[in-house]
């Protein structure tokens, strides 16, 4: 009896460790997000602030605004991951159509040439400028604070810290908003 108790005491930390390990890895094996994974991801998403004042011809609903900001942040998170890793698998469904084709091509060509780009994302100020009456399309401008580092292999070629402005076309899907077009445009205060 004493031996069994001693064994129990001795094994307890190991059992606890195994249980913790199983808790952490179990969901991964099932294809589910592991404990804390979602919160980690949301912590690493860039800050996106959406301004939809005076949006026409259709006003924006609060939930729509929240969804757009969330998926736009997710899109930048994924794009930064793909441009740095050279893996198109880092891109999920946040980009669609021409935007996805262009980004996929760039990531592939970066990988082929040995170039990778690191984006240090300091946040985005989104301004919605057009929302169609039927709710099928939205046009936005983004003033992004980015630090873009370009590498060839391990060699740092260039660092850019100038402000960037992007024009975005987004369309709604069943459960999210997709980026259909993302073009960097000349920085001007006109859109803001």
């Amino acid at each position, binding site marked *: 009896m004493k031996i069994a108790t001693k064994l129990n005491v001795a094994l307890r930390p190991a059992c606890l460790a195994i249980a913790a390990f199983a808790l952490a890895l179990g969901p991964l094996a099932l294809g589910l997000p592991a404990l804390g994974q979602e919160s980690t991801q949301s912590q690493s998403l860039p800050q996106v602030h959406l301004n939809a004042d005076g949006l026409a*011809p259709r006003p924006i609903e609060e939930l729509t605004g929240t969804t757009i900001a969330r998926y736009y942040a997710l899109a930048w998170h994924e794009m930064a991951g793909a441009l740095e890793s050279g893996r198109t698998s880092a891109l999920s469904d946040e980009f669609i159509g*021409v935007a996805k*084709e*262009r*980004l996929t*091509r*760039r990531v592939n*060509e*970066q990988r*082929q*040439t*040995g*170039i990778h*780009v690191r984006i240090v994302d300091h946040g985005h100020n989104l301004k919605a*400028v*057009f929302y*169609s*009456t*039927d709710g*099928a*399309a939205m*046009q936005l*401008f983004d003033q992004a604070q980015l630090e873009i580092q*370009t590498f*060839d292999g391990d060699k740092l*070629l*260039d660092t*850019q810290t100038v402000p*960037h402005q992007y*024009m975005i*076309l987004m369309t709604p899907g069943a459960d999210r908003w997709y980026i259909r*077009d*993302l*073009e*960097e*445009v*000349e920085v001007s205060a006109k*859109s803001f």
Partner: protein
Amino acid sequence: MQRTTLNYLAGYKVLAVCALLCVLPGLVAAADLQVPATVQAGQGFSISAEGSGQATFYLIGPDHVVKRTVNLGGDLQVQSSDVHAAGRYQIILCGSPCTSTSFEVKAAQPAHLSFFLHPSRVPVSTHDSIDATAFVFDQYFNLDLAAAAVDFRVTPASGAGFSRQVPARHGVSTIRMDSTQHEGPVHVTAALGKVEEARVVQQVAAEACGLRMKAFPGANNTIIVETDPVRDCSGNALPDGTVVSFTQVDKAGKSTVDTPIKKGIARAQLSVRGSAQITVACGVVLGNELALSGRL
């Protein structure tokens, strides 16, 4: 002796300055990378890169990456196929050290209109009921942010058409229009230069107007109630299948018969005992009322 040492040192300084001057042209070449500020999509151009020797040339665009070894001291060609996508491009020239610059590619001439017409069916004579939105793209599907104006041409099945020119804002042109008076297909065409895109909206009759019914005897102590041809206020016949409700109130209580319009009219058979009041309605529109006193 001290003087000799000083002379030697002065000589080394001269040599060092000479060496620096020999190296400088390469550095200056890298610093003097001349690129146009803006380029039209699909138009190649050349960059002047002074200096001598070889360098690595990088072009990084929204959808394209180029890396190649180039000889300094001449023009570097950027092919038209390298600049299809609109956006900001980065050029890096790495001799020793690297120098970089950027330029913007803007959309080429309009070549596509992405045209949305909403809704697909609309009642006639309704204010601000048709939305037309056109996105202006070039041949590479870059949104043309500088597009001037889109011409919206409306051609109804009958009656006079009209057109409106709507300035584009950030490559998007949108207009809200009233539906015309007559039912039938209405062709709406968005046009910009030689680019045209057409859509069709089906105009259908609006709510019924002047709804009237009459009654006549049917078989086995029943009556038949039948509407006149059901039309809207513009004279358009309501489509078959539109539901008309006949409501009968008598001693037994209230009963309603819903019947679809067939060949322009709605008809129902009612069983009436004693006096009764019969009303007719179509949607939110009420028609006339009949008071029956046991017989017609």
